[in-house]
């Protein structure tokens, strides 16, 4: 049955990944854009234009804080300083939602700036759950955990990705951020059926949906590999998968991500309008 418990304070409407170059457009004529998502790390300075812009935006729009550097899947302990910066940001901003990734990115040698993959095992469930408990305690709110785009598989994996995410949500009480483009990308790269993935996904835990563009490549065995680039428009099969998803889940806050080769605001707004046209008729 469709669960109507609110998972975040974001509206069941369409947002975009905020880029500083769109500040004036967003403030003056947001069009189909109802809320904004920011990358937490970009707002961890002490002041200046980024913080001033964020304060102005937060007066007009619900804000989702999306972390890209916490390394929740890391084998080592969480970076306490980073966690405290995150907690500080969520403290003064009081965002409508906070989310992070199922991935690791930090190691003793430093921050590797990529969302690196994890083996799906009982041991990883335990470690990631433990980290999420610490994050939720430190930030003082429930977080959403995002499913990754992956390009390879671990021999030691014993669980399906969906089973893995469900188990973590159950243990920690965290919500899930369902990136439909990531489902499409990983399904292609791992040989899964994307719709079967959605069918098995615990949609009642989903507090937000992501949509974005990907690139196509090929591996050395001639197999197509999709790469989560966030550098172009959402492709038609991903729009279809989105429609399929929300038909089952009911409406969810939906985000258009476009992080590289960022287009003029009008193009991003057109993507948001396309998402809104699919989302609005869906009944809760």
């Amino acid at each position, binding site marked *: 049955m469709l669960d109507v418990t609110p998972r975040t304070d974001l509206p069941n409407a369409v947002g975009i990944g905020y880029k500083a170059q769109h500040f004036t457009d967003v403030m003056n004529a947001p069009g189909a854009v109802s809320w904004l998502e920011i990358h937490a*790390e970009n707002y961890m300075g002490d*002041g200046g234009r*980024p913080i*001033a812009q964020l304060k102005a935006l937060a007066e007009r729009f619900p804000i989702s804080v999306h972390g*890209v550097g916490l390394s929740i899947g890391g084998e080592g302990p969480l970076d306490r300083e980073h966690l405290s910066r995150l907690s500080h940001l969520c403290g003064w901003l009081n965002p409508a939602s906070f989310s992070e990734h199922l991935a690791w990115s930090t190691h003793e040698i430093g*921050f*590797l*700036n990529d969302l690196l993959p994890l083996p799906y095992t009982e041991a990883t469930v335990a470690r990631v759950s433990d980290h999420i408990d610490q994050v939720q305690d430190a930030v003082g709110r429930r977080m959403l955990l995002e499913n990754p785009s992956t*390009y*390879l598989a671990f021999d030691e994996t014993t669980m399906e990705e969906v089973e893995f995410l469900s188990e973590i949500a159950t243990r920690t009480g965290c919500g899930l951020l369902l990136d439909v483009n990531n489902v499409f990308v990983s399904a292609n790269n791992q040989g899964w059926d994307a719709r079967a993935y959605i069918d098995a996904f615990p949609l009642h835990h989903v507090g937000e949906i992501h949509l974005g563009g990907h690139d196509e490549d090929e591996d050395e065995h001639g197999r197509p590999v999709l790469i989560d680039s966030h550098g172009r428009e959402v492709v038609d099969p991903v729009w279809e998968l989105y429609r399929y998803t929300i038909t089952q889940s009911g409406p969810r806050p939906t985000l258009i991500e476009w992080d590289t080769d960022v287009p003029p605001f009008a193009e991003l707004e057109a993507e948001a309008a396309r998402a809104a046209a699919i989302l609005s008729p869906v009944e809760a």
Partner: protein
Amino acid sequence: MPDQTTFADALLDADHPVPEGLSDAFGHKAGKRFDIYRNNVAVSLTQALETGFPVIRKLVGDEFFKAMAGVFLRAHPPEDPRLQLYGRRFPGFLAGFKPVRHLPYLADVAKLELGLRQSYHAADVVRLSVTGLTPEAVLVLKPILAPASLVIRSRFPIYDIWRVNTKADAPKPGTDPQDVLITRPEFDPGPHLLPLGGVDMARHLKGRMTLSEAMAPALALNPKADISALLSVFISTGALTLDRTDP
């Protein structure tokens, strides 16, 4: 079963074999699939350096910069996820990187570019305004450099070098050493040429000395220093504050 140390080592060094226990999910060992992650790391960190050091990039050329960034990012990956601060060690790296030994000013120009970014993200405070104050009243104030202000001493004409690579119609760089003050009035930081004695004076702007007292050691070290030029550069650019709250 690759641990994250093995994974990370192989990510940063293409001569490392792809870790055991990783596949393409279709029965083959992960080859090019692993390279996608290698590429993501190298490309994204190179882009962060390109964004942070546009003048260095211009001075050495795109291709050389990419290759040099590849060496740097492997030796010094970011210390934390705030990429806007990435490159703190870049000036030191440039000072010791043999292929650029013929460009000895690069390290100081990189310090200037790094300083602009630090200033951009620094805390906002109320700047010292001297409107309505007599010169005598100004001289007994005990200001400090605002969080968004910093000074750089150089043996090279770094202000000219920065300017000729960022502004149209800027004059060709001279040969005299140039010290630089970086600050921002509101949001956009810029470098300002410091007059003789400026760096020495900045060192004493810690809130314990009056402006007049802070100038004394600078004048002692630089007998030709110009008092009004010194006062003017720090005050007119909004580099000072009386607010000592630590952000």
